[in-house]
């Protein structure tokens, strides 16, 4: 059926015109109510993919909502790291996690979780913030600063670190799939107001 060409309502009660797939009712009475329902259904049917598709290009409100979700996960993760809560970390870390620590070592999910259960990582103090978010559909990139004092395999590290975390949303759940930390050099550490406050 070409757009704009009149056709008969399948129920034979009213003439309808198809305009870009939307059935516009020109009839009246009970069949008119029925057609109105059709119109609503079809408009919703057409709008729903558009609304769903709107997630592909997040607007500011949607981005803010994602930022809140990610921040909540970061808070959970940070708490789990301090408590050595392997179960929580298993949920947050993606199975394919690539974790590059501040020494440039690459750890897989299992190795990273084990660091906490083994007691090789102990937080003397914990402070992390100055988050910046970049949201791309189902990917969120978070950069931030960690000023935590940590006992790592017997060596205490007080140097602030800059980190990048990559979260991917799959089956409705955000998971951390990549993380990298870099020590902030002595020349640049003074610029880190977050850690000096």
């Amino acid at each position: 059926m070409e757009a704009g060409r009149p056709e008969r309502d399948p129920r034979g009660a009213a003439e309808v015109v198809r305009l870009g797939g939307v059935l516009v009712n020109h009839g009246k009475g009970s069949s008119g109510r029925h057609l109105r329902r059709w119109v609503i259904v079809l408009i919703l049917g057409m709008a729903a993919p558009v609304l769903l598709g709107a997630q592909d290009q997040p607007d500011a409100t949607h981005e803010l909502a994602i930022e809140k979700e990610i921040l909540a996960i970061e808070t959970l993760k940070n708490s789990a790291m301090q408590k050595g809560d392997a179960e929580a970390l298993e949920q947050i870390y993606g199975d394919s996690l690539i974790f590059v620590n501040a020494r440039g070592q690459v750890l897989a999910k299992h190795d990273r979780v084990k660091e906490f259960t083994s007691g090789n990582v102990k937080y003397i103090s914990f402070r992390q913030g100055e988050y910046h978010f970049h949201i791309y559909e189902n990917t969120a990139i978070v950069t931030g600063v960690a000023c935590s004092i940590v006992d790592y395999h017997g060596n205490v590290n007080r140097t602030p670190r800059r980190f990048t975390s990559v979260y991917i949303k799959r089956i409705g759940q955000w998971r951390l799939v990549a993380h990298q930390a870099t020590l902030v050099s002595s020349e640049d550490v003074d610029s880190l107001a977050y850690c000096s406050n």
Partner: protein
Amino acid sequence: MRFVLVLFLLAVAGPRVAGGPPTNGGNTNDNIEKEILKIDDEKDQAMQRYVASRGAEGGSDLDRIYADDLVFVNTHGALLTKAQRLEDLRSGSLKFISFGRDSYSLHIYGDTVVMTGRATSEVEYKGKMNRVPRRFTNVYIRSSGQWRLVAHQATTITEP
């Protein structure tokens, strides 16, 4: 009413069912890997040209490959924007003595690719020679058919 409900569900699901499962824009992961390696090589070559020419060459390629909202964390832990990164390269504070990458891995998540690797380039940065290998993470996002680097972080390897 049941018919209406079915119609509604079909209307909602239709475009997605017709589209089927994600196909990475018709590309297999092998193709994506090739595309990412190609764009990463183009980036590295453009960067070397840009540095060597003090910004006279390679700029358009870098502008194409670097996303406008690029977040770039260098081995000093400094966070740079795209403009700051380009200025850093153009300023003459960085010189490549040699350029290399001896390993990498890719993780593909639809239109997002996380590339990690080990860079072995010898660089002189602000007068200081750096021969220590670095671990890097590059995140590429495909938008409108074009892969762009949206995040990069490098960390000096102090323990293998």
